[in-house]
């Protein structure tokens, strides 16, 4: 086990305790706690899991069960920007595959990989809820719609130039 007080920052602990205060039980705040720590550290390491389970006094197996259940909890290190390309039906009918190929070529990575400079990680995502503006992708917390191969690459080029991270909460 890991003592949460030595591992988590005061800001992380405060944010998690706030989530606990609106739930009925401590472990009900598990998913929120994971999101808090991920927002601060980018991803959820084993040490983070142990620290959160200590803070919430919940079994590590239950927390790991929660952490691995969700698409937006990263159990491996990710880049500064995580790109989620929608691969569901509307985006398929509108030809997202060409957008995906362009992104893969531009970044020279495949699904699940991170660029060498640590800027981008490429993942898929189920329907982003903007099917009337397909194809779509989410980068960090921003949604981009009506994509073409060229416009998707342009978005990434702009982000690479900008450099500052979006807060993924």
């Amino acid at each position: 086990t890991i003592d949460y007080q030595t591992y988590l920052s005061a800001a992380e602990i405060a944010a998690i305790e706030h989530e606990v205060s609106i739930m009925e039980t401590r472990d009900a705040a598990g998913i929120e706690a994971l999101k808090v720590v991920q927002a601060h550290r980018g991803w959820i390491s084993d040490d983070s899991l142990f620290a959160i389970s200590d803070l919430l006094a919940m079994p590590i197996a239950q927390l790991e069960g929660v952490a691995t259940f969700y698409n937006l909890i990263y159990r491996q290190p990710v880049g500064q920007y995580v790109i989620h390309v929608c691969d569901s039906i509307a985006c398929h009918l509108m030809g997202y595959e060409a957008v995906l190929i362009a992104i893969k070529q531009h970044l020279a990575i495949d699904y699940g990989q991170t660029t060498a400079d640590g800027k981008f990680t490429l993942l898929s995502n189920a329907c982003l809820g903007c099917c009337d503006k397909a194809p779509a992708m989410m980068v960090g917390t921003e949604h981009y719609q009506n994509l073409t191969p060229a416009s998707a690459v342009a978005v990434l080029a702009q982000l690479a130039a900008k450099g500052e991270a979006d807060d993924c909460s």
Partner: protein
Amino acid sequence: MTVAKFNTVITPLTQWVNLQQPLDFTAYCQVGGYQAAKIALTEYQAHEVLEIVKNSGLKGRGGAGFPTGMKWSFVPMYAPEDKNAPDNKYLIANADEMEPGTFKDRLLLEGAPHQLVEAMIIAAYTIGANKAYIFLRGEYHLAAKRLQQAIDEAYQHQWLGDNIQGSQFSLNLYLHCSAGRYICGEETALINALEGKRANPRAKPPFPQVSGLFGKPTIVNNVETLCNLPHILKNGIDWFQGLAPNSDAGTKIYGACGRVKKPGLWELPMGVTLREVLYQHAGGMQAGLAFRGLLPGGASTDFLVAEHLDTPMDYDSIAKVGSRLGTGGLIVLDDKNCPVAMVLNLMRFFAQESCGYCTPCRDGTPWAVEVLARIEQGQGRIQDLDTLSKLCDFMWIGKTHCALAPGAV
């Protein structure tokens, strides 16, 4: 009661939607916002509101179309001094919208957040819940920001918190942001998620209405279902039923995606025909493409083709032609997209989002993906059709733990 004034409204749900800049508390009040909640709290007892909702004919817009008033009536009610009363009941707005081809709730969440807050006050009052959650899918970041703003404003103006507007009724409303998993939209999986557990569905019965969140009576309603409530209370049952030409009442937010001319969302009378949505509102197919078929209400509904286009889009009529109204979002297939590739895409989604709890779904969906992929690559074998039909049988209603697998086949 003031009824007449509002009776001409025909798009109640979307009339104040503004995606650029939703109405803040003051602006929402100026257009009549929170009047319905006031009517509920000051003019009616809870059981009277329940009676109104029952008689309105409102059915759940989450896809299953279960009558809302009837669902609420299963929640046990207690006198204030009753010792058997549970210490809490819960109301949950299901905003986990993740069904591919469905994007209607997003419009209401981003465009009119106060409407949902007001609706939840009315619903919570009716079932006697003092705690409510909005369960929002993790990808809807803008909606999260706007909902939290609306909730904060409602607290500031005593529409949430203890003794709302000086009444006996108290309600705390919280926003919970999920982290991306389709099954969390299934109401019992959602409840497990909110309890901090892995979000596998629970067996029903018991239904959440009697034993839900932390074992307490709980109502889970879709966002669009809830948003109807202020309008029903303000304008009355007759008005609500008059909105629709057929037996189902009210309006419905229909949508269309795929290669149609004008993909989008429209609030229309419940029961307009598929043809009207497809041709009048979505503008028909893009130039050079012909219509091949559609899914009427999201990825989990069955294909319909040209001969079905005059079917009214209400729960009973669509069921009669062998599909389901579902969420009312058309996914339109054209003649240049391959139907097998389309089905393969859908099946991949279900395989990926299967929660893994029961064998027919956990193993059946990837198996179906494998077979479909083979057919799509032109290497199908005649026995593949047999396999697919067997798989469909294994994953049909009653053989799996929840409705994801039947939805997939």
